[in-house]
């Protein structure tokens, strides 16, 4: 059986879901090693391959035009795309500046402009089709496992 190709990508967020994923690994690393090809998971490895993915996990909100283009590219390379955690699913709290008062905006606008950020921070489904959502801040390990197991059953019915 071909291993399931995994991509894990983090955008504007605190990467709490990445930490939770590394904690889930404590109990599941042996089965996952056999099941998954961690093809592009920068928290785990240096030599990442960016070609095609069976499942791409996207953590974080979308804060810049470059991030927007990258996520579209990932979508095109991936059979399934999963939005992970609150920032990816609803755009918050990473996108809290979207709700700032005019006075607060005066304090931050020069920094938004200096680094070429988007005028409004977006959630992942504003940019591309999302197949599965795992909400939470951070995600719940149980819900994450349930959704991952369902995807594995769909992609590799024989497992």
């Amino acid at each position, binding site marked *: 059986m071909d291993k399931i190709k995994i991509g894990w990508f983090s955008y504007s967020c605190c990467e709490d879901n990445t930490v939770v994923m590394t904690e889930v690994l404590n109990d599941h690393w042996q089965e996952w090693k056999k099941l998954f090809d961690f093809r592009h998971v920068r928290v*785990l*490895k240096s030599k990442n391959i960016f070609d095609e993915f069976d499942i791409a996990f996207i953590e974080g909100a979308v804060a810049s035009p470059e991030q927007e283009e990258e996520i579209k590219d990932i979508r095109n390379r991936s059979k399934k795309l999963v939005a992970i955690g609150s920032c990816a699913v609803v755009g918050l709290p990473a996108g809290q500046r979207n709700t700032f008062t005019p006075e607060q905006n005066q304090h*931050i606008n020069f920094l938004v402009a200096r*680094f070429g950020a988007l005028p409004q921070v977006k959630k992942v489904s504003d940019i591309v089709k999302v197949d599965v959502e795992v909400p939470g801040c*951070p995600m719940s390990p149980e819900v994450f496992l349930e959704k991952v197991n369902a995807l594995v059953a769909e992609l590799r019915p024989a497992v």
Partner: protein
Amino acid sequence: MTKMEGNANLSLKIVDGKVTDVKFSVKEYKRFFTEAMKGKNIVAIPQHLARICGTCSNSHIMCSIEACENALGITPTTQTKILRALMMHGLMIRDHALHLYLFSMPDIFGKDAFLDFDENDPAQHQILHDGFDVKSAGNFLATLIAGRSVHATLPTIGGFLKFPDQTGMDEAIQKLQNIRPAVLRLIEIFKNAPFHFDRKTKYMALVPDDTFGYINGNIVTSSGEKYGEKDFRTHLESTVLPYSQAVGYTYKDEGYMVGALPRVNLAKDKLHPKTKESAAEALSLFPSTDIFYNNLAQAIEILHSVDESIDILSKNKFVPEPLVKPLSDSAAVSAVGVGVIEAPRGTLYHKVILGGDAKVVGGEVVVPTGQNQINIERDIGVLVQKLIDESNSTASDAAPLDKAKIGFEIEKLIRAYDPCMSCAAHFLKVEWEENL
């Protein structure tokens, strides 16, 4: 305000074989947490600021609670102080283990990833299991005390919302006892690790008066100066780095280091007696400014947190108690509160400014990676110059620089500082500007 995980860039300028400029910059987009504090009720601030960083979230909660309690005039109970110490021990075990096993260990064994370790090789098999067991024990302790190991739910202003039961405490003791041999193996590996880089530098840490810990004390520098927590960061100068989305800090016009290495340098005599006994040989290497001993210092801190936690869990029973409320009307007056703690990666400062109606009007956060940033740049400059000089003296003709090798050496060095999460792993994009 930003964290350091995810994307960072390094820009190097080399003219006639000399490094003339190093810019280590944070590419994470700002999320404006301190601006977003404004107008929020003070009760919401610790959970709000936890979202600055996933891996250090419980440090931010702890530091913010301390700042808010100081603003409100709240003195926590003895039981709360003990539970907070345990929460920090759980965090240190989990967080340092993630860094040492998953990020740094592959460099020592010439592997790309921790999961690439060979289960059929007895030594590598042992390390794989050790890594996940140690992480798991830290995670268990943090979850038992704080509700979650990431964005903890139970600690709050005035105390805790729920208390660990005896069954959980017994299980935690068992797990901690079980991992102690693994932690001793970890210390041995990092004591003997072949990487060294020693540039004499200033350093500082919050040093407690009594037992080695992460919450109380004075800020002590490598040259012996002492600053109280209430001074906030008056001894530090902030430096705007226009190329980076982060702010750097200097002390007396120089870069300095924070983290496990300064803590062990400045307070190794306060470690748990069992830790001092078991890690005596490793501890004889401190004080040191060899940045790769930051890894060893983290491994020693894991052992201390294991030994301390076993003691605390064995000697205490925890009973439900109400949250300590602010002194009457204190929430109705303007006040400033400061919190200073040692997060896994170094000294963390929070300031909260309270308006007259329990609403926050402003605040400031100084994170460890911001403080280390200037030191990291200086180190990289010296390291790259050394590698270029070595390359020039051995190459038979004007051979091109081995950029892959230099890039890898730089990554190893930066990883030893343990900047946040994914950047601690494998982020580096080097922009070379070269005129050899």
